[in-house]
């Protein structure tokens, strides 16, 4: 089932979407997507990542055709699809709520897109069979969605999407209604599915774990804009803005206001795993909380108003609560940001990213 025949790159050029009154005097329209330009390559697994309300879902709906952009152009392959209805776009979508037709059987649900497209019944059944087999649904074909578990419904939604072999798959938080264990398993399956289908996936999530584990690239969004596009390794190791630095990583990167760590007007950030506990270090802090997570230990320290998270390997000895420790921030691991724009100051590249860069892409 290789889908690689169509060139399915997606290009968004200066796409803007506003809701509410446009151009009227008085109340300003709310901007959901603000002048976004994004090129998604053929066969890529692109993640749109961001907090709720950042515009990622709206952007996905603009790609799928459910939403019309207020300004800007959308290309799929070489075709300008900006004014095209969803059904002409060769795009399928998997919804967060799955949106299965409750009155149709699983088989009828999967076949439905083909039926609408007037595919002959025999071909329809064959293709539905193939999609069902791929997703392990063959035993459930006669059931109705109401008789299925959440994970099974999610697979039916996927089957309905892949059955008509679209060039582009849009997925809107498809795993968020599953429990944690199932979500982990399904992540791996989705990656495998992507590799098998060799088509373009555009996947919206607010879950950074999904973004890091599944995406070939991640577009981090905030307030209608794209903060950074890059491989998971890039957005983690070389965040382009304070927002990205703090949104990705658990616990988030420690951020120190300008002038606190370095004398100049520079915001400094450092990942918890790069903070060193060093008795000789100048910055003194009190240990407030120690969390033993098994594979690692998190030490939360306080120095005045400042909070610093430190990540230790499981075999390292953690300091006791309430004791005083010294914290060191190795030069090689510091990220520097412009206090005015919150953007990364580019003159500096941390050593570990310089060495691993390219490995993840």
């Amino acid at each position: 089932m290789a889908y690689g025949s169509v060139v399915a790159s997606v290009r968004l050029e200066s796409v803007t979407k506003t809701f509410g009154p446009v151009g009227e005097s008085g109340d300003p329209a709310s901007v959901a997507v603000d002048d976004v330009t994004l090129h998604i390559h053929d066969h890529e697994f692109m993640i749109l990542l961001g907090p709720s309300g950042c515009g990622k879902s709206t952007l996905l709906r603009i790609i799928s055709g459910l939403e019309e952009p207020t300004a800007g152009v959308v290309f799929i392959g070489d075709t300008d699809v900006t004014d095209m209805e969803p059904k002409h776009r060769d795009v399928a979508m998997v919804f967060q709520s799955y949106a299965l037709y409750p009155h149709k059987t699983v088989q009828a649900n999967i076949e439905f897109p083909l039926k609408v497209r007037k595919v002959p019944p025999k071909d329809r059944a064959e293709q539905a069979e193939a999609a069902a087999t791929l997703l392990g649904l063959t035993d459930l074909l006669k059931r109705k969605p109401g008789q299925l578990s959440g994970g099974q419904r999610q697979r039916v939604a996927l089957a309905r999407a892949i059955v008509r072999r679209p060039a582009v798959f849009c997925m809107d938080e498809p795993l968020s209604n599953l429990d944690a264990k199932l979500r982990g398993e399904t992540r791996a399956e989705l990656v495998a599915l992507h590799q098998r289908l060799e088509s373009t996936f555009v996947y919206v999530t607010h879950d950074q774990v999904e973004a890091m584990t599944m995406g070939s690239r991640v577009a981090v969004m905030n307030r209608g804009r794209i903060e950074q596009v890059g491989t998971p390794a890039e957005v983690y190791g070389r965040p382009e803005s304070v927002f990205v630095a703090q949104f990705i990583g658990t616990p988030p990167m420690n951020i120190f206001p300008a002038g606190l760590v370095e004398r100049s007007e520079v915001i400094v950030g450092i990942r918890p795993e790069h903070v060193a506990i060093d008795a000789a270090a100048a910055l003194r802090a009190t240990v407030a909380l120690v969390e033993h997570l098994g594979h690692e230990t998190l030490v939360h320290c306080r120095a005045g108003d400042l909070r610093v998270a430190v990540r230790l390997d499981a075999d390292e000895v953690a300091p006791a609560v309430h004791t005083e420790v010294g914290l060191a921030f190795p030069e090689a691991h510091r990220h520097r940001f412009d206090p005015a724009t919150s953007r990364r100051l580019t003159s500096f590249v941390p050593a570990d990213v310089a060495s691993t860069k390219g490995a993840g892409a």
Partner: protein
Amino acid sequence: MAISGTSTGWPRVARYAVLTLVAALVLFPVYVMVVGAFKSGGQVLDDPLLPTSVSFDTLRDAWSAGKLGRALVNSTVVAVLVTVAQVITAVLSAYAFAYLRFPAKNVVFAVFLATLLVPFEATVVVNRSTIQDLGWLNSYQGLALPFLATAFGTFLVRQVFMQLPKELREASQMDGLGHVGFLREVAVPLARPTIGALALFSFLSTWNQYLWPTVVSTDDDWNTVQSGLRALSQAQIDKPNLVIAAGTVIVALPISVVLLVFQRQLVRGLTAGAVKG
């Protein structure tokens, strides 16, 4: 309601006693009428409460005197016509309100809402002259036409449509379905319980129409069962007798059967306005 149902002993006996008494009162008129209908002409006042005989003479008299056979056909035709039309018009207009964007939507909606406030009894005078001008007194068209669409039906169906998840419409859009296809393939099948309730409600209220058929049917052949029953009783009014009871039984019977079969749907239709969704 397990907790409110903890009464034992006396309260429970009293409850049954009250319910049984009221039930007897409710059924009493029905009983007397049914008993009367199976008596023959001579026994009018003999033992009115006892089924002293089972005779079909009176029923037969009522059937022919009231032209009830013809009236049953008329009522059935009109009720089916109105029911089918009301369901169709309600589904179509409800879809427009629930799923389409169009100019002056609020105004159109307000117009529908306004029609709910107009009592039908206030419009009968003018409606009769409209039907007369169309030349449709004594016709199925005349009996059915004013009721082919109702705002009630529109709102009822619109409410279910709006409760369907909007992703269903979007999924069908992705699948390539237009509005008409979505209406036929998804929206209507999912609204079927409500549409069934609406159909039953329309059927019953049309079947039970009283004023309108007496106004637009001047010819006995165009009586519905209700206006036929009226004609039957008016003919006997000077010397009332068991024929009236027999006619009433004949008219009440088919609808009681319908009710027994479709009780659940009827409850849903009747309470649609009461329980806030």
